[in-house]
């Protein structure tokens, strides 16, 4: 490599560094401000069931998750918290995680909220939550019988 080539290379490198500096920064997301989309997702993630006891609802959620092939990783009864995960079978590289909170309501019903993530990215597809709550409903109904 001779001197002209070297100088040329340095100029190109400097140029690319400077150019990057000139790119306008992307508009900053308002990370803590609620948006319409978030409200929609929250309603998809939440459902109320005609169950009085929190423990019964929690056990129903756990059984539903097990039926769906999830591994129950953590549970906290006083807080009504269940954390579970499963592999995106047939592939074992992608992991699907879900956190469910079960909270008793004033009117003798129980509110269940689920947050699912796919490889640590939040799932916003309402169909996912519909399927999950269908499984919970089935398992709660089976327990009642």
């Amino acid at each position, binding site marked *: 490599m001779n001197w002209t080539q070297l100088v040329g290379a340095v100029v190109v490198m400097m140029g690319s560094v400077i150019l990057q500096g000139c790119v306008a920064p992307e508009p900053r997301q308002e990370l803590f401000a609620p948006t319409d989309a978030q409200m929609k997702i929250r309603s998809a993630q939440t459902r109320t069931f005609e169950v009085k006891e929190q423990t019964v609802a929690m056990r129903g959620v*756990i*059984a539903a998750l097990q039926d769906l092939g999830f591994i129950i990783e953590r549970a906290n009864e006083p807080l009504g918290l269940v954390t579970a995960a499963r592999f995106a079978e047939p592939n074992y590289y992608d992991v699907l995680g879900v956190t469910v909170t079960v909270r008793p309501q004033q009117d003798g019903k129980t509110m269940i909220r689920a947050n699912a993530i796919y490889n640590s990215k939040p799932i916003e597809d309402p169909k996912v939550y519909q399927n999950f709550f269908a499984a919970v409903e089935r398992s709660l109904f089976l327990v009642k019988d």
Partner: protein
Amino acid sequence: MQRLPAAVLLLMGLLVLPQGCVQQTQPAELFQLTPESSANRAMQTRFFDTENDQELLSASAAALQDLGFQVEESVREVGLLRAAKERSAREYGQYRNRFFIWLLSLGHVVIPIDLHQKIAASLVTRPLNEAHSRQEVRIVFYRAVWKGDGQADRNYIPPGEQKMEMIRDPEIYQQFFAKLSKAVFLEPHSI
């Protein structure tokens, strides 16, 4: 890379291809019951005629201990136990395959072999009727395997690549439930 024999390329291609063909499953499908769900449930579940859920849970922990597991998490109120054990994952067959591939590739390819594994279990007990006279125990086993190092021509494959899988061998589940029923002095009922 200049004198890489065609055989090695073909071999590497064959090794890569099946991995590339693994299907992507949509998250919505993963929240649905599949035809295998009920078979898995039957394999992973047994019923016991007992009112004492606490006794059943502690017997489950004892059965897992008998199988060499360490209990990592327990929640009595919802009947949850999580346990794990770490073992060697070395198998004679893999060493043999590695040798033949090394031989066929004229010393260019050394495939990584399984070295170490962590076998984990998640167990839940649950009353099945209002009177709590019948309890269900459901357990699921899975494992993570760590591979050793290898070589593909001049590219070194570092050790530590991880592979995970659900354990679906009915014998493992039968073995566990046999231990559990001995521990609780009860006959297990399958679905």
